């Protein structure tokens, strides 16, 4: 089970700004270990964000994204107290979903 994400969601005018920190190795598949064996690729593949159940962001990621990635995005709408949920699935099928309340 992966470590939780840290999500901040703030309302500014009519848009909500969401900032997400994810805990993930994001192994590229290009590196080798001390024995010279390739370390298999392991990275987040799909990211979605929903606001009150409605998808506001959907992304396909690859191995070029950094370790412990930081994602920031805005969407129109949102009200204080609404829930924003962020989900990711990696190429091993591991998943993580976390939620934050818009402040």
């Amino acid at each position: 089970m992966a470590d939780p994400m840290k999500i901040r969601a703030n309302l500014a005018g009519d848009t909500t700004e969401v900032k997400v920190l994810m805990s993930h190795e994001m192994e590229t598949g290009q590196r080798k270990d001390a024995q010279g064996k390739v370390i298999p690729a392991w990275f987040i593949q799909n990211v979605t964000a929903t606001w009150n159940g409605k998808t506001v962001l959907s992304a396909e990621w690859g191995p070029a994204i950094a370790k412990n990635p930081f994602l920031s995005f805005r969407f129109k709408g949102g009200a204080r107290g609404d829930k924003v949920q962020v989900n990711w699935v990696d190429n091993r099928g591991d998943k993580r979903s976390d939620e934050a309340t818009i402040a």
Partner: protein
Amino acid sequence: MRQRIRAAVAVAGFACAVPLALAQGSATEEIEKYRQALQDGNPADLWEMRGEGLWRTPAGPKKATLEQCDLGKGPGVVKGAYAELPRYFADAGRVMDLETRLVWCRVTLQGLSEADAKKNPYGSSNRKSDNEALVAYVTSQSRGIPMNVRLDNPQMKEAFALGEKIFYFRGGPHDFACATCHGEDGKRIRLQDLPNLTAKAGAQKGYSTWPAYRVSQGELRTFQWRLNDCFRQQRFPELEFASPASIALTTFLAYNANGAPFDAPAIKR
């Protein structure tokens, strides 16, 4: 690695040439911009979260949390505690820095053996360190609070004096002291500027920005780690985790940073 260092020394020999000096200045600015860009999404937050969880979760043979751990301001007081460390602890009868005190609390409150509590102080991706997470949480609770280490008893004065001695002690195969790299303005290793720890501004900036998330390592590193790695770079014998020497050196450096608003966990290259 060794060859690279020699190359860096060769370049430094010509650093008085004007164009190179200019290039160095702009590179420093670019690194500063890069750091600022990363500041907002500092992954150190992930360590803080995990550390707070560890602090509040019962663990060890005694199934106890660390919430009653006395970091110097009374049992359970975390806010501002790091800004006053190291300090003398009467219950232990010696001066302790944060990481030594965390070992103490995990032994006395949670019932771990000292060896277990000291195991794995510096983690890697498949071997996460509880020490690093706990340090991230505790230090985050001192952010913005001015450093205030007091030499108000003989043990603290003794630790400070010993730390000062270690700082200026030359030895090892390279005949280095901490002061060799950290005793003058404008020194650097490759493109990394080194703070002059013998001047107030450098001492404050150097100490108040650790612990930090090291982008190049993908881990949060503590002050004990910083000292340990400086010793390695000097080719000194290994600085043992939570040893009296490490606490003394930390006391010297922390006291010299007094007055600086604490500004970590930070993010570094």
